[in-house]
């Protein structure tokens, strides 16, 4: 089947593969040199990449700008922290964060999906700010200081185990989780279910007349994005050993949106590249000047003006073309019903 959206997703997969290879290479270098700082920074970038991924699912596919995605990231982080302090189990913390963000995003979705466009952005922003303030003022959750003293856990896989305290070990685990979330999202977007989400962005008004409930599709996208953000957030306390209300603040949500725009809206893998890029920029520029946010802001504006499709958005079409040239196979595998189309296509291209 010769399908443009599938083809685009394949191009993203190729970039994802490159990303993983580069990450593995750097991890090996880090391990060989006994580095801690950069591996931990890289791990943090990956965790925030998960948040950016969830923003791109909404913004780039179902067409809804969430300015409060940090809400679910923060809920995931806090629930994970609370669970770890009771019982230091990776799997239990992930399961608890999953359940908590599932419920939270259903409630949030019921509120936010009553409106669309700018109002949706404002409602998601408001929800996150309200929750952040609640956490900020709740002494049981550490209030403005957050919670510290989250134990360093051993992450068990059957007979093997990795310590979250091992920079390279935990980096690899986070890489696996985030790429797993990427793969799951990419898979879902290439199914009939996911294509309805894509249709929402393309022309929401037409969708109900094709027989699909807009509300259900929007809810599905919102809850899926919430859970992805929550699972990413759950990794945060394992890395840093603390959580703070700042994880839910607008700066966190805003950074995720910036990452997506830098990387390329609606490319999925762009969110991950963008997030890593943002962390690198921040730490490089931050080492020159303490006003690094001004520079980041300017770069963001330049990117919106001159590179509106983002880094991956610029590179990806070329990869798509290369993939389709490399792969004339769809013709042979096509449905017999498509034959006239194929003949016409061949006639056109061979001219």
């Amino acid at each position, binding site marked *: *089947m*010769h*399908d*443009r*959206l*599938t083809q685009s997703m394949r191009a993203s997969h190729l970039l994802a593969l490159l990303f993983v290879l580069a990450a593995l290479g750097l991890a090996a270098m880090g391990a060989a040199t006994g580095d801690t700082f950069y591996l931990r920074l890289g791990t943090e970038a990956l965790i925030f990449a998960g948040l950016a991924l969830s923003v791109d699912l909404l913004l780039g596919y179902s067409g809804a700008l969430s300015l409060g995605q940090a809400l679910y990231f923060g809920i995931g982080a806090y629930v994970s922290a609370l669970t770890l302090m009771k019982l230091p189990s990776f799997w239990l913390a992930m399961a608890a964060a999953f359940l908590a963000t599932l419920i939270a995003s259903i409630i949030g979705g019921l509120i936010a999906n009553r409106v669309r466009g700018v109002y949706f952005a404002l409602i998601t922003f408001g929800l996150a700010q309200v929750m952040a303030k609640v956490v900020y003022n709740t002494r049981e959750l550490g209030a403005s200081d957050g919670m510290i003293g989250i134990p360093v856990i051993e992450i068990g896989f059957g007979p093997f185990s990795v310590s979250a305290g091992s920079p390279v070990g935990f980096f690899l685990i986070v890489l696996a989780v985030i790429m797993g979330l990427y793969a799951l999202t990419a*898979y*879902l977007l*290439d*199914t*009939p*279910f996911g*294509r*309805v989400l*894509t*249709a929402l*962005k*393309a*022309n929401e*008004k*037409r969708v*109900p*007349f*094709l*027989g*699909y*409930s*807009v509300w259900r599709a929007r809810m599905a996208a919102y809850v899926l994005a919430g859970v992805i953000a929550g699972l990413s957030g759950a990794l945060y306390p394992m890395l840093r050993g603390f959580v703070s209300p700042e994880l839910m603040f607008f700066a966190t949500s805003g950074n995720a949106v910036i990452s997506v725009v830098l990387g390329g809206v609606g490319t999925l893998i762009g969110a991950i590249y963008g997030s890593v890029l943002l962390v690198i920029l921040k730490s490089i520029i931050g080492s020159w000047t303490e006003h690094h946010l001004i520079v980041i802001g300017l770069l963001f504006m330049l990117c919106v003006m001159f590179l509106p499709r983002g880094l991956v958005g610029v590179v990806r079409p070329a990869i798509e073309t290369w993939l389709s040239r490399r792969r004339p196979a769809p013709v042979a595998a096509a*449905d017999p*019903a*498509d034959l*006239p*189309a194929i003949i*016409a*296509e061949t006639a*056109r291209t061979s001219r």
Partner: protein
Amino acid sequence: MKPVLDIRDLGISFGGLKAVDQVSFQAQRHRITTVIGPNGAGKSTLFNLISGALKPHRGQVLIDGVDMTGAAPERTKAAGLSRSFQITSLFPELTVAENLRLAAQVLEPTGRAFLPVGRSTQALARTGQMLERFQLAHKRDDLAGNLSHGDQRRLEIAVCLASEPKILLLDEPTQGMSHGDTAQTARLVRSLTDDVTILLIEHDIGLVMDLSDHVVVMHQGRKLAEGPPDLVRADPAVQAAYFGHA
């Protein structure tokens, strides 16, 4: 035989204006029923009431004998009603094939909703059929937004038909088309009655007379007359209201 679409005493008002008022008619299976009337007669509002885009204040809409009054568009769609729009409403950033596949996706068993789209054999086969029937096969990978106006109007009908509906509501399918395109579209619409019942809004009177089995004339929200094309055309009231000269 039971009518596929049964409209009973349908009405809606906006403020004080009765946009559609006491309209009743039936659409018979495999026939073309055309709604005509001057601008502002309430034709498109009538389509919105039938397809679920608007909820009627009074009256009933029966699809295949089932009461679907005020049901949401996705439910009237599930009941077998598909509609096009006066102003083309496609997915401009998606390809021609994807526009059709998306519409045909309802034919797949629900279990396939979470399998890759390449496995949606029924939807893909239907997409292939539609591409061929509507002579869009050579444009399957073009973005719908890049098609010519005529091709977009044709694709719009194809999208409506891709889900194998029982009833097709076509709102001015030849709107803005060239003379040649109009004739071609008329032939196409006629050929569709083998599969579906058609309810049409059309302005081109020549086309209406040619194509319709049954004509419903609307004027200021009300039904003025209905019947076979010749009889309706000869009706003095219709001539006064619509054709403007007796």
